[in-house]
């Protein structure tokens, strides 16, 4: 993380110095900072709302039958020895939120799931295989109905805005499969 982040900053500033585009450095940091705060402010309300709602859900008996639906799939992909029951519940809620397309709920449940996975992780600096696999699944777009894209296509005059839904499913399935195979191989080497 440090290397990538450091490289991004150093390369940018070096390019700015070379091209004489120096003012852009400070002004860009300023506007990014402002943008990040605005982003965050937009996020706070929805993240709190969904975490509040899922906190009710977690305390009911419905969560058990709900996570059972996903536990088969989760048990196949993850190492069960390093999975506790809470982790499976949060992972189920994270995956379900992603599929339904509630991004903020996916984020809060994803963070809780990775906290549970971290509890079972022996080296706190380095993710174990379950953690890398879980994050990889989150970098795939599991959303069943890509509402934003459909709306965008409608806005720009597509004759059939939702025609991309099935191709998106195919592409997502290919990407997720390729991603899972890659992480399985890379988990052994890195």
């Amino acid at each position, binding site marked *: *993380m440090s290397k*990538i982040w450091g490289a*991004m*900053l150093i390369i*940018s500033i070096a*390019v*700015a110095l070379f091209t004489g*585009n120096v003012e*852009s450095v400070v002004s860009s*940091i300023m*506007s*990014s*900072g402002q*943008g*990040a705060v605005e982003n965050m402010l937009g*996020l*706070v309300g929805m*993240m*709190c709302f*969904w*975490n*509040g*709602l899922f*906190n*009710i*859900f977690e*305390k*009911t*008996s419905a969560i058990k039958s709900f996570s059972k639906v996903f536990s088969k799939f989760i048990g196949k992909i993850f190492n069960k020895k390093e999975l506790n029951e809470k982790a499976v519940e949060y992972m189920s809620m994270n995956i379900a939120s992603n599929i*339904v397309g509630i991004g903020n709920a996916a984020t809060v449940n994803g*963070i809780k799931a*990775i*906290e549970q996975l971290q509890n079972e992780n022996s080296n706190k*600096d*380095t*993710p174990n295989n379950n953690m*890398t696999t879980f*994050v*990889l699944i989150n*970098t795939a*777009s599991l959303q069943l109905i890509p509402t934003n*894209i459909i709306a*965008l*296509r409608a806005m*720009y*005059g597509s004759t059939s*805005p*939702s*025609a991309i839904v099935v*191709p*998106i499913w*195919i*592409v997502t399935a290919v*990407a*997720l499969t390729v*991603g899972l195979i*890659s*992480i399985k191989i*890379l988990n052994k080497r*890195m």
Partner: protein
Amino acid sequence: MNFVIMCIIPLFIIAILLIGLKEKKDIFKLFVEGCLEGLKMVYRIFPFILAITIAIGLLKSTGALDFILIPLRPLLTKFGIPDDIVPLCLMRPLSGGASMSVVMDILKTSGADSISGKMAAIIMGATETTLYTITILFGAVGIKKMRGVLIAGLIADTAAIITAIILVNVGIL
């Protein structure tokens, strides 16, 4: 169809509230507690969002991104990727907002039902902002090394782009 989709989330909210009430839970107290926890989460991930936003912003505004992309551009065009899709492919894992504006631009100039319009929409809908997702999830628990996640995520994104291009070229859509 559209109406059914729009009903999913509201129905889900009602279902949770009803189940909570039926099981005699103090749903208001649970909700408020969850909100507070959500607030703490936002507080905890904000530094990571800021770090990544600043890095991406600098790459774009200083022109460093163009420097990195110039050698990649002819390579991608050689593989049959339409010229206007190339910036989207390179931007997608880094910044959701920036790639969304690229998609809008493509839809506006080439049309929503054009070849690049379809490719752009599929790529946008089938992938996530890989780097951002990794940063937030690992950041939340203080993980410093990523191991193979970024590489695997980028390989998956590449697979998505290739599949999208093939699907549109073959005429599935």
